[in-house]
């Protein structure tokens, strides 16, 4: 008998992980809709949960096998979010309202102090405690941008929420890089490296951000005349190019993109508004972003940090709330608005976590102490954060759905 051409697939068929991921995306999108309609919560609350469930069912290889292109997709999603977030910072406003700038310093410093103190109290070494404090400063740009955008919230609480988030993310990244310098000194005793590395990251990061902003404002004249979709494509292309550049130069995405947005908004007096479809492109990627974040959370993650993680979350949230409330009235918001704003700042930042993971890879000694607690706290806030922000916006009366 001749060898038959066997065209039928293996049995059981060998499904590629891509299929599972696609299925997870569909599931997440539908679950998001269900959550919104039945619980009145933002869609993104559902995404990490679905990601967690899918990862639990399909096992680890899912993320591991595709980590390269997933990481790339996430970078794009984050870059778009951060560019938009940066463009929300109106420097003229901060000039007119110094109290707002002071609020920003105050809540970031308080959060840093709280997280650092908890870390030290629990016997963490100086450097990891500083790193964790730096991570603790940042509110999650992804969660906050998405919840504000989804609920179409407009007003003092939501606008200040975005501005404070952009600012505390910048502080966090800068502190983190300075602390990295400290690490170099601590572990290697290399002063030149300690100074030049953070200087390179921050300096080059700012230059790339400025370049992107310049490029966008150069094409702005054409963008106005283009149909919205096509203007979005041009912008997206520019963002992708920048990401390529950032990767090649090994620079922090967070800082570059935030700074690009900031320059875009404040570089010229001209009104800058993103084309509407640009946000939609980001919206699709955001489903992926939160899904993947969820996939990285394992049930035991939520538990390993244990009480320490909860204490950390509590101390940090209270510190942020206190920082905001302290200056609420001079900064021009009511006590009630201050309360809601302070609470809404509590979600922890994914991108800073990524940065911490990078540092962890450079210095494996930290893996044991820093990463589990921070991961655990971040995982809990990843699930709870969107709900907190959504509720704060709801009570502020700024939702326009």
């Amino acid at each position, binding site marked *: 008998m001749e060898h038959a051409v066997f065209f039928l697939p293996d049995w059981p068929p060998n499904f590629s992980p891509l299929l599972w991921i696609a299925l997870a995306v569909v599931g997440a999108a539908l679950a998001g809709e269900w959550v919104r309609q039945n619980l009145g919560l933002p869609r993104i609350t559902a995404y990490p949960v679905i990601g967690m469930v899918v990862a639990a069912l399909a096992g680890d290889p899912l993320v591991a096998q595709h980590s390269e292109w997933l990481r790339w997709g996430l970078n794009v999603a984050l870059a778009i979010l951060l560019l938009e977030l940066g463009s*929300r910072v*109106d420097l003229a*406003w901060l000039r*007119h*309202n110094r109290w*707002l700038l002071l609020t920003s310093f105050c809540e970031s410093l308080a959060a840093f102090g709280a997280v650092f103190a908890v870390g030290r109290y629990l016997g963490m070494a100086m450097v990891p405690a500083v790193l964790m404090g730096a991570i603790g400063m940042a509110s999650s740009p992804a969660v906050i941008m998405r919840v504000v955008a989804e609920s179409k919230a*407009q*007003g*003092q609480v939501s*606008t*200040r929420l975005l*501005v404070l988030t952009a600012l505390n993310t910048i502080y966090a990244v800068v502190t983190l890089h300075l602390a990295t310098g400290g690490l170099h000194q601590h572990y290697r005793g290399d002063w030149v490296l300690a100074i030049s590395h953070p200087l390179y990251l921050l300096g080059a990061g700012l230059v790339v951000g400025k370049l992107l902003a310049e490029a966008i404002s150069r094409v702005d*004249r054409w963008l*106005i*005349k283009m149909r919205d979709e096509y203007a979005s494509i041009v912008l997206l292309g520019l963002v992708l190019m920048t990401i390529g550049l950032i990767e090649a130069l090994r620079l922090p995405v967070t800082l570059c993109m935030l700074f690009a947005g900031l320059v875009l908004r404040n570089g010229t*007096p*001209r*009104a800058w*508004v993103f084309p509407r479809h640009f946000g939609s492109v980001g919206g699709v990627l955001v489903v992926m972003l939160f899904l993947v974040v969820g996939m990285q959370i394992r049930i035991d993650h939520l538990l390993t940090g244990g009480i320490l993680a909860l204490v950390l979350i509590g101390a940090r949230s209270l510190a942020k709330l206190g920082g905001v409330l302290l200056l609420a009235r001079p*900064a*021009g*918001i*009511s006590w009630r608005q201050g309360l809601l704003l302070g609470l809404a700042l509590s979600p922890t930042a994914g991108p800073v976590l990524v940065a911490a993971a990078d540092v962890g890879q450079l210095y494996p000694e930290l893996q044991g102490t820093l990463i589990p607690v921070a991961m655990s706290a971040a995982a809990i806030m990843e699930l709870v954060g969107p709900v907190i922000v959504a509720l704060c916006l709801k009570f502020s009366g700024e939702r*326009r759905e």
Partner: protein
Amino acid sequence: MSDETEHELGTFSQSAALTLGIELELQIVSGQDYDLLGAAPDLLREMAGREHPGDVKPEITDSMIELSTGICVDYVDALGQLRSIRDTLVHQADRLGVLLSGGGTHPFQHWGRQAIFDAPRFHHLSQLYGYLAKQFTVFGQHVHIGCACPDKALWLLHAFGRYIPHLIALSAASPFVQGVDTGFQSARLNSVFAFPLSGRAPFVLTWDDFAAYYRKMIATGVVKSMKDFYWDIRPKPEFGTIELRVMDTPLTVERAAQIAAYAQALARYLLEEKPVEPREDDYLVYTFNRFQACRFGYDGRLVVPGSAEQRVIRDDILRTMALVEVHAYDLGSTEALNLLRTEVLQGRNGASEVRATHASEGSLEEVVRQGCARWAGRLP
């Protein structure tokens, strides 16, 4: 206010003849996307307890705010008060990261996205008028002119009817609605005309007759107080004034004061020289003239009441300015009249400025941004 019917018309208060009061409805604009922003409660909270002349009040949707002067004796007084309130408001807006703008309409706001200000009267109006209430997110200037007695007020009200197109053309600043160039110079007034009780006041010349008319209207149940009449000019018994309501909020307080000064000089001219006796038949051409002013501004044509003579509105304004010049001089508003005349000669008003900005900048967001800078007095 909303549920209590005022069965009798209040007595007409005493007020010094030809004093002025100005109310301006302002747009509250987001510093982020330049769309309207419901920040009236925030602004009012931060304004509370600050020293300034006049008053600042909420309006029907929470993206509007109204400023008003106290009683002004003349143009200089009015301008001083307006500037002072404007500066206080702009300072608070700066702290909140929001912007304020003049102009009769916001160029690209969507009426469906506006929210009714949380107060009983506004909720009542919203229930009664439905979407009209939200579409009423338009911004006008009201000028009060003090009248010594109610009969004189009614006489002046009807004598003024003929000059309504002037006030519209001079103040017109609402060419864009919902992102589209309407072709009108004052598209705002089209929103006002949708209301059933808009238009002109009934032709009665004595306060007793007016009170009788008011009682009849109350009896029908259609209105509950003077506030329910949306006439172009209406008597305001509490203040002892007539209130001119056809103007768009101009782009600057300076322009608002100039227009008020022109109205004041015109009132003095009418009362002292009595060039015409108002008649019911004057109103035959009223809506035609008003439409021409809304649509074409200075280039519109008006029919002189009581004749078949057609004039270009620009010429009619210039001619009238010559007639009231001496009164403007006596009232101390020669400067205002000269500035306005220059604008008319150059064919410039708020609408033409908004269109010019749009033509040169290409984006309505930028038009709004510059409008806010101009209102704050920060545009060279």
